[in-house]
């Protein structure tokens, strides 16, 4: 959760980056037509708006001064019609751009999500969920703003500005030159404003991030703050960071407060020039009164786009930075790639594949080896228990079998084929995996059991639940199989979650079963159910079980002892106990008090 507030990547780049822009353009795809229509409507709308003052000029010069009432009515009707059409065009344009923007970023969001579905587990180890979430949410949103109010609106503003200039020149180039002489001043003001505001915007983002992360840290660590009577000091610092942010805000307020009135002032200069210069031209008979009025109206319409353009800059800048981050995810290489020509899973006549580890070395990081030269094999239909102290590398075995990671040295074979050559999905479907920490999805109990095989009927779900004894506790719930469960399964006990996971695995009838037994203590009644369920799960499956309970171990054909990443002993329980080696010790350590001679039989 904390990552949301640690906007570590608050680096803002350029507002325009040709490489990124080209790539973004690629996403426009089938929205090109919509956007083309939008641009067309935009041009027509702008033209309509430009024609307004011209009609006013016409009305004054040709009709009002000559007292032509029917003519005036006609002009006013034309003016109204044009206004209506322009408004309709502008509506259409805004709508089309917004809709196109939505479709475009929706595609990016999906592409991002699909990519996240393919990125390998090591990537997830490095990137906290919060960070990935902000790629999917705030960054994509920033890109929407780019498409909706960024690009097309900028084109619109520029077209309007150019259009006004062209029309002015066409009506009267002398008056146009006089009026437009203020443009350099306007550009200068805008440039200075933009420069300061851009810097301030960047500072603001950094300071907000700092404030938020300090706040978050204090909320999460409030207990420590209070235990050490740190409240006054931390308040002081919070106030200081907030004050610093306020200072930046006040500076931003200052520049906005200068910019808008300054633009108003330039506007007044332009009107003054029209009155003074235009007045002279009019006295000389070079322009009509209508022209003068039209010019005043054009200057009015000149200023909105100028203000807008100055503000669009931040949107562009934010969007480019977001695009950079989104593309980084999309371009991320896949560390555990699927083979180009995947082989199907070879399954023996019995329907169950064999498993073999051949001199496997594995490390999550550098050469901090978790597994060292591990070799063993599990024959078709055989069940094997893996035991060892915490940190021996047992759970890693499961991750490797599911090919969440690739081994550095050696190979893992399923059905005699290196898993690197197998189709990933087929491999994982063949294995029913029950992890220690059972992940429960938000939804109903039924949905959760059906998770791996969504097409199974409710009957099949209930049957699977019955086999592993999950049926009973599910029926005890108010609405049974339709009982909603929370994310992370807060409403279920550890034992119940275990049983749920068993049902989930069993429903798909996997030929291989991989089970990481829960270590947590479970009440004896549930424990008995779980033990019986495990027995039923093992039936007719090649199985590897990370076992923590003696009864589980005794159900397996063979035992592998892992110690500090090495496979140190293997054999049946009787053989291992006779060796008086590590298993012998472990046996005492984990299963307590029972003397080895006392009723321990070979599990096979």
């Amino acid at each position, binding site marked *: 959760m904390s990552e949301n507030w640690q906007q570590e990547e608050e680096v803002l780049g350029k507002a325009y980056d040709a490489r990124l822009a080209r790539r973004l353009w690629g996403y426009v795809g089938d929205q090109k037509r919509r956007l083309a229509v939008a641009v067309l409507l935009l041009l027509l709308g702008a033209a309509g*708006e430009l024609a307004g003052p011209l009609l006013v000029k016409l009305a004054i010069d040709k009709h*009002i001064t000559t*007292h032509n*009432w029917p003519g*005036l*009515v006609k002009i*006013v009707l034309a*003016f109204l019609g044009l*206004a*209506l059409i322009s408004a309709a065009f502008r*509506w259409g344009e*805004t709508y089309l751009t*917004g809709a196109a923007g*939505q479709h475009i970023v929706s595609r990016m969001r999906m592409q991002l*999500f699909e990519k996240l*579905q*393919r990125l390998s587990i090591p990537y997830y180890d490095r990137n906290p*969920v919060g960070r990935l*979430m902000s790629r999917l*949410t705030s960054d994509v949103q920033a890109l929407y703003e780019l498409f909706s109010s960024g690009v097309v609106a900028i084109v619109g503003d520029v077209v309007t500005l150019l259009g006004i200039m062209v029309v002015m020149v066409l009506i009267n180039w002398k008056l146009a030159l006089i009026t437009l002489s203020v443009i350099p001043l306007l550009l200068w003001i805008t440039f200075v404003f933009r420069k300061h505001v851009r810097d301030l915007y960047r500072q603001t983002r950094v300071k907000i991030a700092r404030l938020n992360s300090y*706040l978050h840290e204090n909320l*999460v660590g*409030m*207990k*420590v703050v209070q*235990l*050490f*009577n*740190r409240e006054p000091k931390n*308040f002081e610092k*919070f106030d200081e960071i907030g004050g610093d942010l*306020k200072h930046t805000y006040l500076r931003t307020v*200052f520049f906005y*407060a200068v910019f*808008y*009135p300054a633009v108003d*002032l330039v506007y*007044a200069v332009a*009107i*003054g020039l029209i*009155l003074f210069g235009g*007045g*002279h031209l009019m*006295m000389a008979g070079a322009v009509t*009164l209508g022209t003068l*009025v039209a010019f005043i109206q054009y200057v009015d319409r000149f200023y909105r786009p100028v203000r807008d353009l100055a503000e669009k800059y931040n949107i562009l800048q934010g969007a480019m930075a977001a695009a950079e981050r989104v593309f980084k995810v999309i371009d991320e290489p896949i560390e555990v790639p699927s083979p180009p020509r995947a082989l199907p899973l070879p399954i023996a006549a019995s329907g169950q594949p064999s498993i073999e580890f051949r001199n496997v070395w594995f490390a999550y990081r550098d050469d901090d080896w978790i597994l060292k030269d591990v070799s063993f094999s599990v024959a078709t239909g055989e069940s094997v228990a893996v035991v060892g102290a915490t940190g021996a590398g047992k759970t890693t075995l499961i991750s490797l079998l*599911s090919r*969440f990671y690739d081994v550095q040295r050696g190979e893992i074979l399923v059905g005699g084929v290196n898993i690197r050559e197998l189709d990933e*999905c087929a491999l994982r479907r063949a294995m029913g995996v029950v*992890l220690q920490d059972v*992940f429960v999805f*938000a939804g109903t109990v039924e949905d959760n059991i059906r998770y*791996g095989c*969504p097409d199974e009927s409710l009957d099949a779900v209930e049957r699977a639940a019955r086999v592993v004894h999950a049926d009973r506790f599910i029926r005890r719930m108010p609405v049974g199989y339709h009982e909603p469960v929370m*994310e992370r399964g807060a409403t279920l006990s550890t034992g119940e979650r275990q049983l749920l996971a068993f049902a989930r695995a069993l429903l*798909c009838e996997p030929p291989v079963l991989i089970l990481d037994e829960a270590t947590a203590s479970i009440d004896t009644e549930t424990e008995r159910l779980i033990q019986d369920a495990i027995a039923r799960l093992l039936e007719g499956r090649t199985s590897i079980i990370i076992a923590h309970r003696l009864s589980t171990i005794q159900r397996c054909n063979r035992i592998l002892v892992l110690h*500090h990443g090495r496979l140190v002993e293997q054999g049946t329980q009787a053989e291992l106990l006779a060796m008086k080696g590590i298993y012998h010790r*472990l046996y005492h*350590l984990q299963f*307590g008090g029972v003397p080895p001679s006392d009723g321990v039989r070979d599990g096979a």
Partner: protein
Amino acid sequence: MRALLRLLPYLRPYRAQIVWGVLIAVGNSAAGVLAPWIVKLAVDSLSTKANSRVLGKYALLLLGSVAVASVLRFLLRKILIGMSRHVELDLRNAVFAHLQRLSASFYNRNRAGDLMARLTSDLERVRYVLGPGIMYPLDTVTMGVFSLTMMLLISTKLTLIVLISAPVISVSVFYLGRITYRLHSQIQDQFSRLSERAQENLAGVRVVRAFAQEERETAKFGALNDEYVSRNIAMVRVQSLFMPLIGLFFEIGTAVILLFGGWGIMHADLTIGDFVGFIGYLGMLAWPMIAIGWVANLFQRGAASMQRLNELLDSQPDIVSPLSPFAPEKMRGEIVFDNVFFRYNGANTLSNIRLAIPAGKTVAVVGRTGSGKTTLVSLIPRLFDPSAGRVLIDGVPTTEWDVQALRRSIGVVPQDALLFSDTLDENIRLGAGDATLEEFASAAEISQISADVAEFRDGYNTEVGERGLTLSGGQKGRASLARALLGNPAILILDDALAAVDTHTEERILKGLRRFAKERTTILISHRVSTVKHADEIIVLDQGRIIERGTHDELVARGGYYAELERMQRLREELDHMNGMANDA
């Protein structure tokens, strides 16, 4: 709307700014409203008696009036929007200060993410009410009154005709705003669904992969995404009406003026200048009309957000010092649990705890995860109060102690060693900023953090946490221990603090601690027998009850939970020893 009344005390310090704001707004509108009038005069003069001098005069007048208006406008923005930033800081500080007074039980109920949202986006919405929410209505009223007056001066009839459409603008902006708000919350709902799904998918990535459900997950996400997009597009449809509609009203006004103004000119009721001036005033009136509707929405949202902030401000701190608190010069460190019960979520986490720890003794607490060990020690520095029974320190119930005095004399090393993003020095000095260098060195020495720091380039000035060096679990634990020792506490509580420290270092720490612990009461929570075996008394907790108590030897002899723990650890050591030999071979 009532929620916003709570803002009044925060505005009081800025009364002068508000008064100035009102005056300046009046002046700004008065000066601004001159411009169209000057243009009108100039245009009129052009059709009659124009010359350079007259034209020049009007141009300069125009410039002058706009210059005055611009300066006032600058001041208006700077004062009023600036004020909103000041109040924002004050309000944020007030909420933060209040949050600092709320106890651990409040933080158990409220997620940090939700509190963050209130202090960020809700606060921002409240600020909108204070800045633009005050400035624009001022603008609207003054500008509206002045331009309306000028329009009436030009032509009453024309004004009335044009004004027919004015309320339509305000009302439609208001209603569009309402619809937008409704659509917006629908979008937010869908957005929550979409992000929850993504969050779950990313957090459960291993399960998704293990069951090869990537395609199905993508399809589910896709369905939510499609709905999200279509809701957004519904919003776009309404929102895109906004600007064209406003433009249209303005154009219709212009058309009306053109028609009726033209009629007036033909019948010599009006001049061309009147006409031009009138259009100018229409433009000035349009913005206030839009602003009314917009500001109304701003207030609605601001009130909802303020309500959420008020909820925080109204949460009563449940752990506060009594009116006449007990605050002795020095704590002796005697602890008594007098038949203590603690209930959490309807279940007893602690039951019937009777325990007396004389000052200067060391007591160890062992037990399974969830047996209530951490809750037990949390009652001593009064992070929680017992549901029944009393905890007495030096014979005085904790509820009668001055909370700060109590906590100052208790050093806690919590389970999850939380360091702040700051230098290591600041982190260690967290509770004792005025400790001497010797004291600091001694605390660093006992906790063994000094050995780690020797390796850091910047020594104790090394930045740690989020923006600095990431420390290992063991290093964090040691820093956290040094922090607790530095306060020279009468009671030292170690809540499984050395779990992440390797056994050799632990040995050294424990040796140092035993010397340190001589004069103070120490409570050790641990899973390691090696940590607890020297304690004067060891208690075993199970489901909130004390099930065994005694010295190491007594408990081992008794053959209960502790004896079992001891035996398993002895075996583990042997095992490690064996493995060491195997590796050497």
